[in-house]
């Protein structure tokens, strides 16, 4: 399957937006404007961009603690995201959730999640719901390599397979769960083989090649929409920064510098840009224009977040239950 040029341009724009957003967070976090925990997605942009580009507006996703990329790719507004990260009233969760809990029911974003593995059953239920409600909605479920060791992963894939649920399970294998490398947390190297146990398709793709991710996701979404059931897609990738901001030396306590540098060579954004230039699908100028637009959008988001108010103290007691 060949991708249309406008699809590729959109993929580029999405990845660039995620990268720029995250790079701004590095700075804003260091200056104390974004409190709490910030788990950045730099280096892994192709996964969120590639998968979400195959989903429709009313399709769903579940996300993780490392969720900014998923949420941006699914169509969240940068302003409301940034405001949430600042803890402002105008944020997606009125400032109550922060980085790890961004959600937007209108955009089908069923929440980033602070619990590793927590999103898997939720995605399964969203898929089940679409089946019960007889809609054509598909759910994309993001989770990490280490989260796939959790019971929730196995229970979810089993349920989804038995009931042929329209869910695409996307494992972002960035080779680590915090400090624990894959070889120490599981005995296999390709997580996709776990699909075999649940009798569903399992594929491994280069998670730094957005086109490969897109193609795999496209196929899985088609299958899901056709009522044929779930797919497990493993995307091999790498996070450039520490587990979260503040992790000493970008995770240097448990990762060799060479390893980190070698993955930076495989930058998914530079790769797509290079390919498009080479194939004369876009000009340097064309890319630059997108970059400028992206930078401007992030600037506006930061300004919006800064200008917004913190919530009133009484708001603490609201939203515990539906009134």
């Amino acid at each position, binding site marked *: 399957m060949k991708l249309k040029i406008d699809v590729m341009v959109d993929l580029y724009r999405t990845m660039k937006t995620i990268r720029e957003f995250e790079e701004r967070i590095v700075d804003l976090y260091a200056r104390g404007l974004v409190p709490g*925990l910030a788990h950045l997605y730099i280096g892994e942009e192709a996964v969120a961009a590639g998968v979400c580009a195959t989903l429709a507006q009313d399709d769903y996703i579940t996300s993780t603690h490392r969720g900014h990329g998923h949420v941006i790719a699914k169509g969240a507004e940068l302003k409301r995201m940034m405001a949430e990260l600042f*803890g402002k009233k105008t944020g997606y969760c009125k400032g109550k959730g922060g980085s*790890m809990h961004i959600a937007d029911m209108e955009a089908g974003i069923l929440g980033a999640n602070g619990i590793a593995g927590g999103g898997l059953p939720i995605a399964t239920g969203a898929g089940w719901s679409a089946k019960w409600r007889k809609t054509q909605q598909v759910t994309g479920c993001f989770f990490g390599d280490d989260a796939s*060791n959790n019971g929730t992963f196995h229970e979810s894939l089993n349920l989804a397979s038995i009931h042929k649920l329209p869910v695409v399970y996307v494992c972002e294998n960035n080779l680590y769960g915090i400090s*624990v490398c894959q070889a120490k947390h599981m005995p296999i190297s390709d997580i996709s083989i776990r699909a075999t146990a649940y009798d569903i398709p399992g594929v491994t793709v280069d998670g730094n090649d957005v086109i490969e991710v897109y193609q795999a996701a496209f196929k899985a979404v088609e299958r899901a929409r056709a009522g044929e059931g779930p797919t497990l897609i493993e995307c091999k990738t790498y996070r450039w920064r520490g587990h979260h901001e503040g992790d000493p030396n970008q995770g240097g306590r448990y990762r060799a510098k060479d390893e980190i540098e070698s993955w930076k060579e495989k930058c998914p954004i530079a790769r797509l840009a290079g390919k498009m230039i080479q194939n004369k699908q876009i000009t340097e100028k064309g890319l630059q224009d997108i970059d400028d637009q992206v930078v401007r959008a992030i600037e506006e988001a930061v300004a919006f977040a800064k200008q917004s108010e913190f919530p009133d103290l009484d708001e*603490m007691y609201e939203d515990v239950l539906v009134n």
Partner: protein
Amino acid sequence: MREITYCEALNEALRESMRTDERVVILGEDVGCYGGIFQITKGLQDEFGPDRVVDTPIAEAGFVGAGVGAALTGMRPVVEIMFIDFTTVCMDMIINQMAKMRYMFGGKGKVPMVLRVNIGAGRGTAAQHSQSFHSLFMHIPGLLVAVPATAYDAKGLLMEAIQNDNPVIFVEHKRLYNTKGDVPEESYTIPFGQAEIKRAGTDVTVVATHALVTEALKAAEEAAEKGIEVEVVDLRTLVPLDRKTILDSVKKTGRLLVADEDNITCGVASEVSALVAEEAVYALKAPILRNASPDTPVPFSPPLEKAYMFGQERLMQSIRNLMKY
């Protein structure tokens, strides 16, 4: 005496326990080369090797349950759960297995295991990384629950927890990790069920846990300037609960404030209040007051989180209110 941090005191307790008892093993996420995300297990994998200090996958039900099985068959596992919030994903292993076996089996078998967790808001980490629901474990028969407030207590209570033949939920406090205190270099244990009067007084009893012990001591200092003598009782363990120390203190002062960071409903503060209402109501000169967290999840936004939390100021207000009677 030498001063070290609460964090270092815990590390020392683990190290000394592992040196003297080879049945002690540590399981948890990132406890190895990373030293645990709060550095409590720092250096232990270097000294004892990856077989005794084991980095686990994200599989809490699996490795907590494995701890139970290992304890039942002769080991003394110390299992770390990164935040108390994540005990929810392995509650069956804690509540139905670890806590129940001894009783269900009619006194056969024992589960000498320590489950280390931590509580506390104030780090901007929102509703799934900031909870303080330690009272939940106090509610479940079959578990001991320790709540150290100082570096000294952290070491002595953890040594005791590891040597104890019962399952222990060992509740640490994130804001205390970097606080310093006098800690002896040699090994020692602090028996469970012994609250400590951290300051003696005659007008108001403040029963406190964790970081609120320090806040209560500061409030007591402030109150003393106004001629109010506050007695601060640090529970140190919730199970067993040192009922006698609580009741004796209240009988002396006639006024009780309970300060604990769990949500106010059905928390430690409720239990201590009920105890005093049942056993010492005639000694009371004023209604019992509770200072605890509101019944909402912990909000992320800094001003909201700040409003959610409380310390010296709120305690002082309550002390003043009690003195109106």
